[in-house]
């Protein structure tokens, strides 16, 4: 598989390399061929630090919600009502139209069934897709791409498999995307070039390429191969030409920028199938605020960035699905310092052209004192793998869910049917 991908890419890049005289439309068509037919794309957003789902999708009819959160609850009159029971945090205004137009679905009381309250274990479990199993070395999204290959029986011939197939915006490949399928991490599209940005690779870049390609160091040889493939493709595709659509304003934040660059790379037709980015700042132990304040600020950046991405994708949004998750929720009760501590179940957003949105999915377990998990947090009623399993089978075409989520025993007839 690796061999074929590399063989193809070398062919592809040869066709493009050293052809500065070739008109750009021709180069574009070569690249378009390289990228294959426009397929379904999946974008995954991880909220690191455990976002407070109860203040994000607020169960504003729950009396106990207000009793347990005297200083941080969102007042009924301020929530953006969704269905008469749940309401969005007022800073999620950018999500409201997406929900109303039926493109955004919400799953509440969802998350990882493992009971850990450690950020780091919980993130690993969620990213590996194997709660409770520490030894898993790869991520669910990587395995979903493997399952897609298996399903399409194209492991030997899949021409859409480019260096950009699995993409992380950031300086490292997250566990979610790690595995057999090569994944690429980059934090700055414009800076992704070795030794200058000329039309052709510089001599130093060529020397590095040889050095790494023939190295006896397997780890660096593989990383070098992928690096130079990607640099060449990016040089040819020139994603910088894709500027946000008219009237699309991304927040000037790191997350806003990441979403903007994902849109750029998707539009540049580089063969991106799965993209990942994360956003931190959710660990609100102290002074998290209510309708305004710390969490509110995170949420406006979060929703404005995602909504801008959605608008920016324009017609192509039809083939895009975006899903958000966070390692666990936070305590139902506010703590002694105007914040919340580590909890359990949380809310997930699913946004997409094919999503049956405008609905809050999942069974609501209630918030009375005797309904809480360990007497302190929201009970989990939907395993996050149920949601992701449906998403990857409906979008990427990963049919063997046992590969993607081993031992989760996902059955399509138990899916929430949100796509």
């Amino acid at each position, binding site marked *: 598989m690796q061999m074929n991908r590399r063989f193809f890419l070398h062919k592809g890049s040869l066709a493009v390399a050293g052809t500065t005289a070739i008109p750009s439309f021709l180069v574009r068509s070569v690249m378009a061929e390289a990228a294959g037919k426009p397929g379904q794309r999946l974008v995954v957003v991880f909220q690191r630090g455990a976002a407070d789902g109860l203040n994000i999708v607020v169960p504003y009819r729950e009396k106990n919600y207000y009793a347990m959160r005297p200083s941080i609850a969102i007042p009924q009159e301020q929530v953006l009502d969704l269905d008469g029971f749940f309401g969005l945090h007022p800073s999620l205004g950018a999500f409201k139209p997406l929900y109303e137009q039926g493109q955004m679905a919400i799953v509440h009381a969802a998350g990882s069934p493992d009971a850990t*309250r450690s950020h780091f274990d919980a993130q690993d479990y969620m990213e590996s897709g194997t709660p409770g199993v520490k030894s898993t070395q790869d991520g669910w999204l990587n395995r979903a791409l493997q399952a897609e290959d298996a399903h399409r029986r194209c492991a030997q011939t899949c021409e859409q498999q480019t260096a950009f197939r699995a993409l992380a915006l950031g300086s490292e490949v997250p566990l979610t995307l790690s595995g057999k399928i090569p994944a690429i991490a980059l934090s*700055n599209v*414009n*800076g992704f070039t070795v030794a200058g*940005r000329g039309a052709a690779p510089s001599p*130093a870049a060529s020397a590095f390429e040889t050095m790494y390609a023939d190295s006896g160091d397997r780890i660096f040889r593989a990383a070098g191969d992928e690096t130079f493939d990607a640099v060449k493709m990016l040089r040819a595709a020139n994603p910088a030409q894709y500027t946000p659509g008219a009237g699309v304003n991304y*927040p000037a934040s790191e997350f806003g920028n990441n979403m903007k660059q994902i849109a750029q790379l998707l539009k540049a037709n580089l063969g991106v199938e799965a993209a990942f980015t994360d956003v931190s700042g959710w660990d609100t132990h102290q002074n998290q605020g209510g309708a305004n304040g710390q969490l509110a600020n995170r949420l406006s950046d979060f929703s404005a960035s995602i909504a801008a991405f959605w608008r920016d994708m324009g017609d192509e949004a039809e083939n895009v699905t975006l899903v958000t998750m966070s390692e666990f929720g936070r305590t139902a009760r506010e*703590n002694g310092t105007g*914040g919340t501590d*580590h909890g359990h179940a949380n809310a997930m957003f699913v946004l997409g052209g094919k999503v049956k949105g405008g609905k809050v999915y999942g069974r609501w377990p209630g918030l009375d004192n005797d309904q809480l998990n360990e007497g302190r947090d929201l009970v989990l009623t939907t395993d996050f793998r149920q949601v992701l399993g449906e998403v990857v089978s409906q979008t990427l075409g990963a049919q063997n869910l046992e590969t993607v989520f081993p031992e989760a025993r996902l059955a399509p007839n138990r899916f929430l049917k949100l796509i």
Partner: protein
Amino acid sequence: MESLRRPLAAILCLLLCSPASLGYTQQVPSPTEPAAAHKKARPAYSSKQLRGDQRILQALNRFTFGPRPGDVEAVRAEGLEKWFEAQLHPESMDETDLNARLADFPEMQWSTEDLLYRLPSNAEIRQAMTTGRVPIPTDGTLHAIYENQIYRLEAKKAEKAAGGAENGAKANDVQGKEAAGKDAGGTMQLASDGSMVRVDAQGNVVTGTGAADSANAMGADSSPTAMSTAGSMETSAGQTAGAQTAFDATAIAAVLALGPEQRVERLAAMQPEEFEGFIKSLRPVERVQLNVGLSPGLRLTVRALENPERLVAEDLIAERLTRDIYSNAQLDEVMTDFWLNHFNVYLRKNEQMPYYLVSYARDTIRPRALGKFEDLLDAVAQSPAMLAYLDNAQSVGPHSLAAERAERVAVRRPEAKKKVHEGLNENYARELMELHTLGVNGGYTQADVTEVARVLTGWGIDRPLVAGSFNFNPNRHEPGTKKVLGKKIKENGEMEGRELLHMLASSPATARFICGELAVRFVADDPPPELVDRMAKSYMSSGGDIAAVLRTLFRSPEFWSEANYRAKVKTPLEFVVSAVRASNASVRNVLPLANQLRQMGMPVYGSVPPTGYDWKASTWVSTGALVDRMNFALALAANRLPGVVATWAEVPDLAGAPADTSATPESEEARLEAVLIPGGVSETTRSAALQQFAAQTRQDAGLAQPVAARRRNRAGNATAVERQDQVLAGLLIGSPEFQRR
């Protein structure tokens, strides 16, 4: 004593060194693969042991931030054992060179209280503006520092109020460049205003003209560009916000013509808007001239007049990198880095954090980096940095006097909208056990976390905005007996916490957890369990003595196993610092290095979660990472990082002979390879570098003075040989071999 130690060391070495083949060659063993190591059967450590200079390199690569030219010879002469013992005694090191460099950061020696008073944070300034709880000093220069900040923050506020809607549109123009920075509004923005430009003892400008220039040099692909973008946005916004006095060339020249002291006095005497106008009117070259002849103290004043909080954060980072690069007590620095990561604190948690971190690194961590773990744990638990970072300073016992008082207030004045938060916060309690001591599988429960939080109530910070020292407040302490890990802790105020920390520090789970982390840092991503066991035993029998544990590590065959030679992939910090050390570069401005680390995903004091950074290869080997490393290597070698100068022609080869101008490409390569990668590189790397070297030579022969090369080179007058050396050195630093240690 000395004479006795040497034969002893030799005997020890004889015992440890394998009796295998005497025919040691320069051949590089094929690198092992940490990521895949767990799948393979473990090698038998008794058989394949490192020998000769490879042992020296192994020690230098693991216990230092990488060898400098000449280090291998020095250790060979001193003897490995003796060198290591000396490293365990940092107090005996000669640090004349380092201390001279640290003199650039005089405020790094101040107490937290002094720092807060003389270089006020934005939070203090806001208090001074609103509540008056922070008084404004009346003394001349200090008064000006405060007034200037009040002016700056007010202008910022006015600008925010006026231009909030505009921001979104502006962001699009930036085209993703600021994404390189984790928090573009943070520390390194200063790099763009040229204030970090330094001047050498003779008053010559050594750093060029700051980030604007570095941006040109690096192309639009590097973080200095990102910083300058963010900075210029702020500058233009600032200009529109306040109506500052514009200065014409004559007025500027008049200020610049003053003697050092008078110049700074003049700046301090300016009204805030006048000062702002003056600074904004300076061209980059004038910006540099402003600092000419100023002592470190006067330079500090100029920067403080502008933005004291930024200066504290910058110097905090610059001081740490300076130590990493130049300290002779390298093991002490490596261990300081290790503990700062183990007990991670994030620089931007709040506006006081840069101030707390100065004392945290200097007074809490470094003096105990090679001491007893329990002392370190105690000191960290009482450090304002950790107390603020993991929120313990906010935690109040639910049945404490303070909570009861808050309750009474709430009952008496139910209309009071702003509820006083008086209750438990379990953030520190959890991470104390999960990350600092027992490890996540250390056998504690959620109930233990809550009990530990109760034990530690009252541990807080005395007047966070102005004093910033530890304080135990009995009024906030939860009364009653607590039960942690099945053990009762009787009500005893602050001493309960002491008892708890002692219990945690002396737990076998902690010994294993700490030793496992050390083994990952020093030996392999997947360290042999036998080694960790041996270290943990040493920890327990020595009462958690870190030096004793490191000695055990040093004497373990696993450390000297060929399988673990070059087995570790350098983290970005290790890569950047080792590259600077290997190239023997003179660093007058550390901030471009800090910018590189941020670009590579490892900003100094920049880990948001309490885990700190990972030491394993899988985190740091990726496509984007390699691009950054190669570009950094080329930029460093070609002196394109402002304030960082490497002189390749002057680097002597191992025989001590100066560079030969009639050198052949092969001899140049051999000379630079010996200096930069004393363990040697593969034939592939060597020939790829030489091929490029030849191409460069042909290019230079064809053009009398290649325009591109001249423009790219800061010095502007690099000879053809120097340019070739630069390319060669850049390729070697960017090679696969240099990515490992």
